């Protein structure tokens, strides 16, 4: 069925038909294949109907031969609208100009953003991109994303990936930076003892061992040296390559060590309670003389608060000091603490100290030795707990010959391959 709001696009006309025997007009139109829609009989000699623009032209030929007069009441649809529009040239020109402006403006890059840059300054990336045609105000066709990406990678050594994405008038430069190994992990150096102890086992991965099983060492003493002696075969090899005769020593040195933890807990608990009695004393010092207002407090136990003013004239301070002392009487309470509670507290604190010193994988050699002693600190009695353990553990501690910062960036870079330094790599 050909119904509905079908013919707005091709366009139609609303016509008025006047004449006699209008039924014959309707039949003639239907017979001629012209579709009439919404035919309304207004009077005996007049009807109103809608017909397509093409149908109307055929009806006119049909009506010309008979006595029917057709008048167009209204033209509806796109072709008529366009026809009307065609007469308004300024409007069309304005519309076209607006479209052209939108097209031109959307063919340019207006915003450039950088994403993913952590250490490389975004401004430097933008500057390089601008040199190769990508800047706010540039034509999208005037630069090549591939070229900008390539130049960014060539200019900045610490970029591993670059991608220029254009979304409308926004260009986003995505970059990913290279992750360099921690320079401290590549520096040459020695393995030194972390604690005093007796070597039980030494396993050298790299470097020259300087101690042997059974030796007693002190904390800080070199255990495995990273310095190659002249008689060592690698020494000559390194020198021949133009490298310093150093290694990064590595290994495991297990030693019998002793740790001690010591902590105290009070056997009396002190608490203060204000009695509510207060005292104020004002003291004026002029030169070397003191003038008091109010005597000294007659309290046994009290807390004091002092406030002091010294007037000055610009940079000169006057020899005049005013100070006020507030005293508040307190009552001291002493309460004995259960010895077991005090022991528990002191033991826990002492253990914490021992455990902080033990290395991962430490093996305790015998039950810990615990010593308990009652001590007097001032007028308070305390319980002291001393814990001593004997353990076998790895006492290796790496000590670089020089720090990465002192060595400089170039020290470790050649070891990574073909990197050539254009951009400095930030120090650790």
């Amino acid at each position: 069925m050909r119904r509905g709001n079908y013919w707005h696009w091709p366009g139609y006309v609303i016509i008025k038909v006047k004449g006699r025997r209008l039924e014959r007009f309707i039949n003639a139109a239907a017979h001629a294949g012209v579709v009439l829609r919404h035919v309304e009989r207004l009077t005996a000699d007049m009807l109103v109907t809608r017909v397509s623009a093409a149908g109307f032209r055929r009806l006119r030929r049909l009506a010309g031969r008979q006595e029917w007069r057709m008048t167009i009441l209204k033209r509806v649809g796109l072709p008529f609208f366009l026809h009307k529009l065609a007469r308004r040239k300024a409007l069309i020109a304005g519309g076209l100009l607006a479209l052209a402006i939108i097209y031109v403006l959307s063919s340019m890059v207006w915003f450039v953003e950088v994403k993913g840059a952590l250490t490389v300054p975004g401004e430097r990336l933008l500057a390089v991109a601008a040199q190769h045609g990508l800047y706010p105000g540039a034509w999208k066709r005037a630069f090549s994303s591939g070229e900008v990406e390539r130049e960014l990678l060539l200019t900045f050594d610490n970029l591993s990936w670059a991608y220029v994405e254009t979304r409308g008038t926004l260009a986003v430069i995505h970059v990913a930076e290279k992750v360099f190994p921690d320079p401290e992990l590549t520096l040459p150096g020695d393995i030194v003892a972390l604690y005093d102890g007796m070597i039980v086992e030494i396993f050298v991965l790299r470097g020259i061992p300087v101690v042997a099983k059974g030796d007693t060492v002190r904390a800080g003493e070199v255990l495995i040296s990273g310095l190659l002696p002249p008689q060592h075969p690698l020494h000559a090899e390194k020198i021949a390559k133009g490298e310093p005769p150093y290694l990064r020593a590595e290994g495991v040195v297990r030693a019998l060590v002793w740790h001690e933890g010591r902590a105290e807990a009070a056997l009396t608990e002190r608490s203060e309670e204000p009695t509510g009695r207060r005292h104020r004393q004002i003291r004026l010092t002029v030169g070397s003389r003191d003038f008091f207002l109010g005597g000294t407090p007659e309290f046994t136990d009290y807390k004091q608060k002092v406030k002091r003013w010294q007037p000055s004239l610009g940079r000169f301070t006057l020899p005049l000091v005013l100070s006020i002392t507030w005293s508040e009487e307190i009552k001291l309470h002493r309460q004995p603490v259960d010895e077991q509670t005090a022991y528990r507290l002191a033991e826990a604190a002492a253990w914490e100290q021992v455990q902080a010193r033990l290395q991962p994988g430490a093996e305790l050699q015998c039950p810990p030795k615990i010593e308990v002693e009652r001590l007097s600190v001032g007028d308070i009695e305390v319980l002291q707990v001393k814990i001593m353990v004997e353990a076998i553990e790895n006492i290796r501690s790496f000590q670089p010959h020089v720090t990465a910062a002192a060595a400089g960036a170039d020290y470790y870079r050649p070891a990574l391959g073909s990197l050539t330094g254009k951009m400095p790599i930030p120090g650790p």
Partner: protein
Amino acid sequence: MPEAGAWHRMLEKLSGALELPQDVVLDLSRVILVGRLQLQVENHKGVIEFSPSRIRIATAHGEVIVTGTRLFISAIYEHEVLVSGQIDGLQLL
């Protein structure tokens, strides 16, 4: 016309035997009434009378007469006519 009548009966029998739609074989008109709002006549032979209260449509075997108020022809094609408005009566002559 006895010849035409015989021809018609023969066609009727044939369409019955072959189970063909009779409106197609016998050139009959099809009248569809949608509530009291719309009437569709297929295979019409033209509009005989057209006023807002009465529309007469010719068919091969007579007339379809529609009465009502504010009647109008919503569309007319060569073989189909659609009448809309408030339909009060329908008569087949």
